[in-house]
């Protein structure tokens, strides 16, 4: 493209560019400005020393490490539990598939807050699970199932596993079942056919699901706040504490910048392996339509 042509285009943008301007303007004002404000605030309220404080603060360092640790656990569990579920959906008759898909969508469309609230009801000391175990005589005293890492993992995996399942399912549907049959016809046992044919071919879906679950885990607030213990808070909770409780928006903003940088850096690396379009579903459906 020659520069005079670019110049002409810049002076007279085409119709579709003009159609996009209101949308771009809205996102920049309603979303871009708040993001820039956080960065500015982290550096000027009162000074860039906010960051210096963060990196010497033992509590913040621990909550940052804990956040990554929880996100990794949630991602691992979501993929491990989600894969067989997606496989059962992709390789079964219409009846079982309908049931599995129905349960998945019912759960997926129940609000996050309601599901987290429900786990509170289920796991509390006087909750359904403890009552049941006490009645059955399995335990004498209620198990500490809530206000700890266990409850956070249960709640977060429950909310995030559908994202992994849907990504893996889309990928498995694209794997030709005849390839597996071919492997078996040639003498591979079902397990071998799965490990050497199906699993490798479904890896793009696994990767896309894992990246999405990991990124969403990093920013989780609701579930850890309701089900987690007061001692093991995550970065998102630290941010809210700084802004709402300690009234220190500068430090809160610096934490937000760190969290945002973590998310974007991870996405940048992940996009080298899996297309971002696939992760976010922009291009995910095109192959199948």
């Amino acid at each position, binding site marked *: 493209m020659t520069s005079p042509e670019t110049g002409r285009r810049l002076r007279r943008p*085409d*119709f*579709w*560019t003009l159609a*996009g*301007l*209101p*949308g771009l303007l*809205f*996102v*920049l004002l*309603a*979303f871009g400005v708040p993001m820039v*404000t*956080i960065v500015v605030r982290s550096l000027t309220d009162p000074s860039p020393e906010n960051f210096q404080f963060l990196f010497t603060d033992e509590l913040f360092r621990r909550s940052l490490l804990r956040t990554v640790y929880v996100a990794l656990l949630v991602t691992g569990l979501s993929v491990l539990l989600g894969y067989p*579920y997606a*496989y*059962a959906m*992709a*390789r*079964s*008759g219409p009846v*079982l598939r309908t*049931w*599995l898909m129905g*349960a*998945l*969508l019912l*759960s997926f*469309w*129940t*609000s*996050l*807050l*309601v599901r987290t*609230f*429900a786990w509170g*009801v289920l796991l509390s000391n006087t909750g359904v699970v403890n009552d049941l175990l006490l009645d059955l005589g399995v335990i004498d005293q209620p198990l500490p199932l809530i206000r700890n890492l266990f409850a956070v993992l249960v709640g977060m995996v*429950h909310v995030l596993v*559908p994202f992994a399942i849907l990504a893996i399912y889309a990928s498995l549907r694209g794997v030709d079942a005849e390839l*597996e*049959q071919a492997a*078996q016809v040639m003498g591979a046992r079902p397990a071998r*056919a799965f490990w050497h044919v199906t699993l490798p071919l479904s890896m793009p879906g696994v990767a896309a699901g894992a990246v999405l679950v990991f*990124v969403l885990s990093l*920013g*989780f*607030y*609701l579930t850890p706040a309701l089900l987690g213990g007061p001692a093991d808070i995550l970065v998102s909770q630290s941010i809210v504490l700084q*802004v709402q409780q300690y009234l220190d928006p500068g430090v809160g903003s610096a934490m*937000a910048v760190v*969290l*945002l940088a973590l*998310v*974007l850096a991870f*996405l940048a690396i992940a996009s080298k392996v899996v297309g*971002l379009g696939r992760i*976010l579903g922009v291009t995910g459906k*095109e192959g199948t*339509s």
Partner: protein
Amino acid sequence: MRAGLFVRVFGLVFAAILIIPTVVVTATAFTEGSIITFPPQGMSWRWFEEVLTDPVWTGAIRTSLTVGVLAAVIAVLVGTSLALAAARSGLLPSSLVVAVGMTPMVVPLVVVAIGVYFVYVRIGLYGGILSLALAHAVLGVPFVLVNVLAALRSLDPHVEEAARACGAGPVRTLLRVTVPQILPAALIGGLFAFITSWDEVVVAIFLNTPTLRTLPVVIWGQVRSGLEPSTSAVATILTVVSLVVFALTAAISSRRSRSRRVH
């Protein structure tokens, strides 16, 4: 190749675990007693009656609906505008437009929440219903963008070329030919945007004032102070609305694929 017995049984057990929270909350809403128990004692609509006659809850339901509808309308307009540019602009790279529209999906909600909170307090928008609707609209944009962009890319360009050849100007072609074809996709995106707002808690907590409390914010307050069957009743209402909206999106997309098959 069919999944093995073990995998199928695992699928069913896990499916049960997936829906247990929804089932438990719904069941506890129908209890006759005044504490949450499972299985519930008796069966009554008592807590639903209480919720629907309590001005705190009805006010919150009204606020949630208003914010959700406003946010969805704005998200549809913004998302469609972005999708048009992403699909066809000769000037703006498609990937840039898509990146701008999709970013709200990956930024942690807490970060969005404190950002809009800072800005709204500064410019005096804090406290109004529009403030929350604007913030929620941003969160809904990605859903509209994804759906409309996919619809635009699957359009038959000859239809628009024919309209242009018959003398229709670009605006007229857009409104009379393109928009009707992408309308179902925009509607589905809008319904997703509505649910995003309807369920959203974190931004709504930061922007809440005594006169601006959505349903999830009131539930949040209750969940933290102590559980009552009325919370379960409201949670059930929240879920039913979500499922109705989901059924609508499913109905629209199945009609769309049917009409496509006819062509």
